[in-house]
């Protein structure tokens, strides 16, 4: 049996019409994922090798290690097919849907990373796929919309509310409530009702399974700490899972945005730091830490990184923070941009803005905010090509010492990219 509660958190807060689907999925999760029935996990691992490109390397970062005075190892999930850790989950769930006999895939997407991963997985496994995406996000993530369409997925814009991730999730839930018998909903993170948080964690746990073996091969022991960014928390849980029983400090780095203070009047949180600043609530099917006002209305969250921009967080991660196993910390937008430029310039890797949060925390730790020990693994959850336009705009508004001089564009008379 799998557990649906993590201390106070988790559970199954879903409409009655969905409960049978949730029970069916729980049964499938236990049989195929936990018990490897019909060789499900074997096929999952094979496809992640052949289609996904696993294992991803664990790379020693020479310049960062020298700069900070401790050894930094990067788990290169940015090298996974699709450019981020998202495929681990998307391929796992689409394959599971196939084993369950479902013939249609739906998913929500915010910035488009989960949508593109799901569209790739669905094309790979020959399943029809529909992606719900807020209309605001459709407009500002055109390349990702195009990628999904190239992979044969239908993209349905959601016009409700602000037209972003929260509304896209609600709309996907609505579709599922009317189509559960033939459709599987591929949720994008370790959020939602049980069994999603446990199942997504297990698919993403490939990250720490490999990283633990790789670091032990390299230095003969487990690291002193593991650092990962946290929005919904899927790369976080994936990076932590196989280190949970080790004496390893686990750091979940949240998006501090522009401020950690909630604007109660406007219902706006200028951050996405649910673990650090949120309160207990029920969002999208689970009890967890939520950014909300005193009446229980969910706040708008904000981050320079679209992938972390979410008002909730996975319930198991909330529990691990509550019981002290995981430390939740924050870095703000400016520190994140500096870390983005530093890795690009000094290591030759352009990181996703999500991952740049984890990197930015190294800088804070080196200046005395935390003791990460001598051997540190950082999950580089994705590549940053998708963020280049945002980075150019955001860098332009700030005075960052590490940023390159981009004035050649002006001299050439061109606008922004």
């Amino acid at each position, binding site marked *: 049996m799998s557990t649906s509660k993590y201390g106070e958190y988790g559970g199954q807060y879903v409409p*009655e019409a969905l409960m049978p689907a949730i029970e069916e999925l729980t049964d499938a999760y236990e049989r195929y994922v936990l018990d490897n029935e019909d060789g499900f996990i074997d096929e999952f691992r094979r496809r992640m090798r052949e289609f996904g490109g696993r294992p991803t390397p664990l790379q020693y970062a020479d310049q960062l290690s020298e700069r900070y005075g401790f050894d930094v190892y990067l788990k290169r999930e940015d090298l996974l097919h699709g450019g981020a850790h998202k495929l681990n989950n998307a391929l796992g769930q689409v394959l599971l849907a196939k084993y369950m006999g479902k013939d249609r895939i739906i998913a929500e997407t915010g910035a488009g990373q989960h949508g593109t991963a799901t569209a790739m997985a669905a094309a790979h496994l020959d399943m029809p796929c529909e992606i719900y995406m807020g209309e605001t996000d459709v407009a500002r993530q055109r390349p990702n919309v195009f990628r999904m369409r190239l992979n044969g997925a239908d993209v349905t814009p959601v016009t409700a509310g602000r037209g972003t991730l929260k509304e896209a999730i609600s709309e996907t839930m609505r579709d599922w409530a009317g189509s559960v018998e033939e459709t599987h909903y591929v949720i994008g993170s370790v959020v939602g009702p049980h069994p999603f948080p446990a199942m997504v964690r297990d698919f993403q746990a490939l990250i720490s399974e490999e990283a633990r073996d790789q670091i032990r091969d390299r230095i003969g022991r487990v690291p002193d700490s593991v650092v990962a960014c946290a929005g919904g928390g899927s790369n976080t849980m994936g990076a932590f899972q196989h280190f949970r029983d080790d004496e390893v400090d686990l750091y979940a780095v949240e998006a501090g945005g522009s401020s950690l203070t909630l604007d109660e009047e406007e219902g706006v949180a200028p951050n996405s730091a649910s673990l650090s600043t949120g309160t207990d609530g029920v969002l999208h099917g689970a009890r967890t830490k939520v950014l909300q006002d005193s009446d*229980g209305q969910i706040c708008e969250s904000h981050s320079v990184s679209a992938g972390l921009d979410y008002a909730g967080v996975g319930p198991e991660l909330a529990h691990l923070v509550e019981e002290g196993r995981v430390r939740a910390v924050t870095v703000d937008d400016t520190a994140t941009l500096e870390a983005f430029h530093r890795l690009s310039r000094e290591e030759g890797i352009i990181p996703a803005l999500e991952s740049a949060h984890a990197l930015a925390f190294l800088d804070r730790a080196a200046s005395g905010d935390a003791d990460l020990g001598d051997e540190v693994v950082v999950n580089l959850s994705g590549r940053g090509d998708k963020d280049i336009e945002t980075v150019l705009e955001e860098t332009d508004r700030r005075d960052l010492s590490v940023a390159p001089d981009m004035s050649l564009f002006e001299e050439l008379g061109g606008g922004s990219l």
Partner: protein
Amino acid sequence: MSLASAFEGGPAFVPYLVAGDPDYSASLSYVEALDDGGADAIELGLPFYFEFVEELDVDASLVCMTYYNLVSRYGESTGPRPFVERAAEVGIEGFVVPDLPVEEAGPLRDACDEFGLDLAFIVAPTTTDDRLQLIRERVSGYVYVQARLGTTGAREDISAQTGHSLERLDGWEIPKAVGFGIGSGDQAERVVQAGADGVIVGSALVEIVGEGIETDAPTTEVSSRLAGKVRELKAGALAGGSSTNRNEHGRTDPTLER
């Protein structure tokens, strides 16, 4: 007093509107228009202000329909108790919480029992027999029978779907109110003929409010449209009731229906 009493005078009509849509004072008029039209109970989508309910002047029973987060977050202490206590004070008689399945409903059920309020649950076409049993043990007031899964698709077969859903609740003492996609008096009539003790209508009324916003119609005009729609639906429900053989509890006698 139990919500079930709203079903005692024959087939009940239960409309739904969002409190505060599109604004506070218009919404007061709209909800009162539902009452004028003959609603027996009103499901209020309640964002967060109880003073709205205090100001309402209606005869119908009031049911609060909202997300569990708002229920559990209210007040100083955690859990649903402060919300239920306040709801009882302003005269709400019961709750429907669509994102709270019966497994997670223990704390709210306890609070409702403490303050004498009802907690209705939804039964969906997909609800399994095991779950039906759980719901039967915990439900009070009325059972909300969701007539179909999606809101789109053929509406012609609504009475067949309703009949099938109600067959599964055969022998339940509690009133059965059917909802989801019902929008006309004719449909209301057929739902009652198929054995429902009540008819719940939401989106058809929410749409009237929405049209009022789009056309910038005066509040009085929207109110009279709402009251008219309610009269149509209520008349349909009553017509369905009078054309069916009903036993003394106001429920269809299944032996006569077959």
